[in-house]
């Protein structure tokens, strides 16, 4: 009898609980199978809208994260020097009393002396509100170093974005262009989607210096030189314009391309949109009545046209030409300005080819393929819908060209404009929220940009007048002092980075250390590994954390409170460590007020429920935060008697109302649990979620699935759910007038103007139409051509060895690891315990490097010793590695000789957080001048051989930070 013991009917466990995965920000639904109160198995929840049952490597390995030996188990108080990992375990009472004392003192004197930065936070709806109630402007999560370029360019252009708020139409697209995407937050939906595209035979194009992962299965790999996508996209636009393959009707219906832009150089309103006395934007239309449709041809300036409200319907707007306004001044349609720019030779394929590393013929072919797919293979869905103006349509026309872009675009100092270029390219193709194209995910679209501005001042109760993060619409919204200097510790929303909608966590430590723009008292960090892989310039960042003031002998950053669940590198730098639970031990909320998990066809939000009780003395951070708030007596957290309003986070999720009837969760609201979106709190809400697999999923009405920005069926639905304030159409900002307001300020107009030192920079980068510029630190285009298309910014001349750094160095997310967390996971770390520097065989040969050699990677900041590996799928001008595999000895409960430390490496040691500036304080952030997005991928390097290339071992040679800069 073979296999006597084989029993094929063993139950998987004795209990199954659903919850939401936290092994990355994708937030899939999972089923946790429990056996004897231990986790037997975690698999994907087949009902869940995000992952539909699939689960990635990290998600499955969650079990080993939960049982990781690196879990923290008790609050820790530092007893030795910072960085030495010498702590005393303390009780929670002592820990919270201490934190309350520190924070209470700050709040009483100078609330902004608290810098509260919450890293990879999935509870920003709570933490942002808490910061607001505390009254500090110095709050943000990690977005500034992550993908704010995508978020901001999207929100200021579309009222949605590639980042988190939109997705390709996986079911209908025939042509997908992936711009700089390795993994994205939408890990599983993208993979499910790619699977669908493959099954349908749709074409996938990967624009990426590296061919791996998604790029590996793409039909076409376009190995672009890093940082030059703006040129490539511009050249595609050039070609579409040149060949007249554009969807002009789409532009005039859904965008402001036809809006007239005042052309009056030197005037205070030059470049602003022409408006009538009621403030309505104007356009030029043919001066013809409906009865007489034959236009005078060609219409002469001032003749044959008239001005009309640009949002009027049934008009025939003109999109090129110069027109006179009522006051006699000239104005041109925004499209005209756009076409002038992109039809110029600057964006011709033959011009950009050298800088991009993409053949001119390829560019022309790609443009042709885009047009063929969008126009010759347009989709027509026989679906009735009503547009925002109340007109009925019998069908939905689709452009089955979808684009998706992420950090390959974002993590460059030109990412905002590059991303806007992509959005304009999509608009030209009529490919935003149409069948087959990029689609919004509710609650998006919102007005571009949404109305909420960052809080600036404190109310009587000490709370900020608005949440600390928001969208700056005009110079008046900036957080600058009377001299125009930054108010925030990270310099977000200052003239240096006006649209820093996600803050700039990457510069907090350097700024706080330098006391520029101010000193802080307490740095309160939550799940951001700022002592390692989250930091730029990691070596010196670690020094700043331990650096003492020469005169007082105190740490220059006086206090650090850190909340982590695991023994990360950053734990070593905290004065007080508050240990969090694992994701399977707490309530959590994936809220519509933060970054929900909706897909294009439905609004969704979700919760986490504790599936296991902690076996250590740890507490969920969100509950701790509410507890701290109550101890501090923060408004909204204590009642009139000073008693805590909320028992814990679960209680807050259910009972807290942001505005009447709007809380963290949109599902099962109202006393009976029958309301959606808006409704009084429902005490049983969490039970309803749990019964439904811990998520809420509300489908968009069929007639509202496309053209959401101008589809009444959608807009009414979204308004009823409280997603948007009105059902007015959302106009796509082809022309970003908001930027022009900043440029005008820089040119000396208006009440709020930048200080002299910032004028040139603001004037240059606040261009209302997208443009390409070489990134600040480097300029590959200029290194190849003697005369650069645009002179680089202050990077010029700052580095005497400029030009000698002939390679771009970038990182990619490995699909099986999440940043730093994966290495404590006994399964995931077996996949990659070390990382290599990948380079093209030709690059290796040119540098005398063999496969497997140990070499030096040299950047202006210093050098690191790494192991080289050859990869034909890497573009010859680029070297790359997997992100965050390298670890620091002592962290993550790894043994001292772990390859993560001995052999693996972080590129971060070589990446500047600020551009050096002569003098005391650091220069501009190494970031996008518009948004403050960290320019990780602008790093330029060169390779030097080592004398003993077969002798293994990683080393870091980065000079210590002496005096400032």
């Amino acid at each position: 009898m073979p296999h006597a013991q084989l029993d094929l009917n063993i139950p998987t466990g004795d209990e199954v609980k659903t919850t939401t995965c936290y092994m990355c920000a994708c937030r899939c639904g999972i089923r946790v199978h429990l056996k004897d109160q231990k986790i037997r198995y975690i698999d994907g929840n087949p009902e869940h809208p995000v992952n539909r049952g699939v689960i990635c490597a990290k998600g499955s390995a969650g079990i080993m994260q939960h049982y990781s030996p690196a879990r923290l188990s008790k609050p820790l108080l530092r007893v030795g020097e910072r960085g030495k990992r010498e702590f005393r375990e303390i009780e929670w009472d002592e820990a919270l009393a201490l934190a309350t004392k520190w924070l209470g003192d700050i709040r009483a004197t100078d609330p902004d002396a608290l810098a509260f930065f919450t890293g990879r936070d999935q509870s920003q709806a709570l933490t942002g509100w808490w910061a607001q109630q505390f009254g500090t402007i110095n709050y943000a999560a990690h977005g500034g170093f992550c993908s704010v370029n995508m978020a901001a360019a999207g929100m200021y252009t579309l009222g949605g974005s590639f980042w988190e708020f939109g997705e390709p139409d996986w079911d209908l697209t025939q042509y997908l262009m992936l711009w700089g995407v390795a993994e994205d937050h939408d890990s599983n939906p993208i993979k499910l989607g790619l699977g669908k595209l493959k099954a349908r035979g749709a074409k996938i194009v990967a624009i990426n210096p590296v061919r791996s992962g998604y790029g590996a299965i793409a039909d076409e790999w376009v190995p672009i030189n890093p940082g030059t996508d703006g040129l490539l996209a511009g050249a595609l636009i050039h070609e579409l314009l040149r060949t007249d393959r554009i969807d002009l009707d789409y532009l005039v219906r859904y965008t402001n391309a036809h809006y007239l832009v005042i052309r009056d150089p030197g005037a205070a309103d030059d470049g602003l949109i022409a408006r009538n006395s009621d403030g309505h934007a104007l356009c030029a239309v043919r001066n013809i009545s409906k009865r007489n449709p034959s236009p005078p041809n060609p219409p002469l300036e001032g003749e044959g046209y008239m001005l009309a409200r640009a949002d009027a319907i049934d008009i025939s707007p003109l999109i090129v030409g110069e027109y006179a306004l009522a006051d006699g001044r000239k104005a041109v349609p925004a499209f005209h300005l756009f076409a002038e720019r992109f039809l110029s030779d600057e964006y011709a394929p033959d011009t950009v080819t050298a800088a991009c590393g993409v053949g001119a013929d390829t560019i022309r072919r790609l443009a042709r393929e885009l047009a063929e797919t969008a126009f010759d293979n347009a989709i027509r869905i026989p679906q009735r819908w009503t547009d925002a103006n109340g007109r009925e349509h019998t069908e939905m026309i689709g452009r089955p060209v979808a684009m998706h872009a992420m950090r390959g675009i974002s993590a460059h100092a030109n990412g905002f404009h590059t991303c806007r270029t992509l959005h304009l390219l999509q608009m030209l193709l009529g490919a935003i929220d149409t069948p087959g194209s990029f689609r919004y995910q509710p609650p998006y679209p919102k007005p571009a940009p949404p109305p909420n501005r960052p809080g600036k001042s404190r109310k009587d109760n000490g709370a900020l007048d608005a949440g600390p993060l928001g969208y700056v619409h005009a110079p008046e919204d900036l957080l600058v002092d009377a001299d125009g200097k930054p108010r925030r510790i990270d310099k977000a929303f200052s003239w240096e980075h006006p649209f820093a909608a996600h803050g700039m966590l990457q510069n907090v430590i350097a700024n706080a250390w330098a006391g520029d723009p101010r000193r802080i008292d307490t740095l309160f960090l939550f799940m951001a590994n700022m002592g390692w892989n989250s930091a730029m310039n990691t070596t010196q960042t670690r020094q700043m954390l331990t650096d003492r003031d020469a005169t007082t002998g105190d740490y220059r950053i006086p206090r650090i409170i850190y909340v982590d669940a695991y023994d990360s590198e950053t734990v070593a730098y905290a004065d007080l460590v508050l240990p969090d639970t694992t994701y399977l031990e707490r309530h959590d909320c994936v809220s519509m007020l933060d970054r929900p998990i909706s897909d294009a066809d439905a609004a969704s939000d979700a919760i986490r429920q504790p599936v296991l009780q902690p076996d250590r003395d740890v507490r969920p951070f969100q509950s701790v935060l509410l507890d701290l708030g109550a101890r501090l007596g923060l408004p909204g957290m204590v009642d009139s008697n000073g008693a805590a309003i909320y028992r814990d986070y679960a209680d807050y999720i259910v009972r807290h109302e942001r505005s009447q009837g709007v809380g963290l969760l949109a599902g099962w609201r109202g006393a009976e649990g029958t309301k959606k979106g808006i409704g009084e709190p429902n005490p049983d809400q969490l039970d309803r979620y749990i019964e439904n697999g811990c998520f809420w999923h509300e489908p968009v009405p069929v007639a509202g699935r496309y053209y959401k920005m101008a589809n009444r069926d959608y807009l009414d639905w979204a308004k009823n759910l409280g997603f948007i304030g009105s059902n007015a159409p959302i106009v796509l900002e082809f022309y970003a007038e908001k930027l022009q307001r900043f440029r005008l300020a820089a040119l000396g107009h208006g009440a709020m103007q930048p200080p002299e030192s910032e004028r040139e920079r603001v004037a240059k980068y606040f261009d209302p139409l997208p443009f390409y510029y070489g990134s600040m630190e480097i300029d590959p285009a200029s290194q190849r051509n003697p005369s650069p298309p645009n002179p680089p910014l202050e990077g010029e001349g700052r580095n005497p060895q400029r030009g000698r750094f002939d390679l771009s160095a970038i990182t990619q997310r490995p699909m099986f690891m999440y940043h730093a967390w994966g290495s404590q996971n006994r399964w995931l770390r077996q996949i990659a315990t070390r990382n290599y520097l990948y380079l093209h065989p030709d690059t290796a040969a040119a540098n005398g490097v063999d496969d497997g050699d140990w070499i030096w990677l040299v950047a202006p900041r210093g050098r690191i010793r790494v192991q080289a590996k050859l990869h034909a799928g890497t573009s010859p001008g680029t070297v790359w590695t997997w992100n965050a595999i390298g670890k620091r000895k002592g962290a993550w409960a790894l043994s001292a000789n772990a390859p993560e430390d001995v052999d693996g490496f972080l590129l971060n040691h070589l990446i500047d957080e600020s551009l050096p500036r002569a003098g005391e304080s650091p220069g501009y952030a190494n970031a996008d001048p518009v948004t403050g997005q960290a320019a990780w991928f602008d790093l330029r390097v060169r390779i030097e051989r080592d004398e003993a290339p077969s002798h293994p071992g990683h080393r870091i040679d980065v000079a210590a930070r002496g005096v400032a800069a």
Partner: protein
Amino acid sequence: MRPSFSIICFTTLSGTGYGLLFLIGIVLVSASPIGSPNSLLIALCVGFVLTSVGLLASLAHLGRPSRAWRAFSQWRSSWLSREGIASLVTVPVMAAVGFALCNPPHGRFTLRALGLLLAACCMVTVTCTARIYSSLPPIRAWHNRFTLPGYLLLGLTGGAVWFCAIVASNAADADSVSLAYSILLANALVIAPASALFKRTYWRHIDALTPITTAVATGLDRLGDASSFEQPHTEENYLTREMGFALARKHSVSLRALAFWTVLAAPLFSVAVALMFGGGLLLTCVLWLVVFASTAAILVERWLFFAEATHSVKSYYN
């Protein structure tokens, strides 16, 4: 393939042991005068010890040695199982031979029959051992027509040097001496050269094997030429350790030469000593030296047998 010490000991010692036992059997069959049975008895004991130690060594290779008895069950398909059974069957045959030698007088026929049985058992056992390896298609250095004769020949030459040394050490009478001399000559002139030359042919054969390319192993040859970009795991695993063993060419060349010349020359050297100095203590010492050298050479040969063999799974890791 990773040259595992236990398996090398096993195949070398048991091969040699069975070679020795085989010779005992042949001597009995050939009915040549054997002189005092002591030499044969001692040789029989040594053969028993060698094969037993070899088999015990093979147990060390098992993950669950306590369950080794289970290995006798699958004789219908498994050469390892057959080898186990054959080696087990050989034990009572050895005992019978020993009993017969200890309890003369016996009819010539009994001894001849027992000798034949013993020789056959040994031959079968070594054949089984060889077939364990030669029946593994993924290891082309083993899966060929050279493996079996190689095992038989090397077992025989190994057995022969032991035989000579044992008999010479006990040589009380002329019959024993002439027996030792004849085996010595047979080995030096026929068996050892045949083994060495055969081994060389084997090496030529495996050198001529074209490695399975990664493209063929993955079937990606239909697209083009494939090579690893990333391995499934950055550190070593069972497969890369066990089947990914790679021996540097220069080591291989010198070790082969060592094994070849030692197997070939050591017996000849003892013949030369015998010719020059005749029998006696010196020759006995030399013969034991030859035992040592030849056994060591066979160990080297066996080490190479593993170390030079590549497994097809390695093609996935290239």
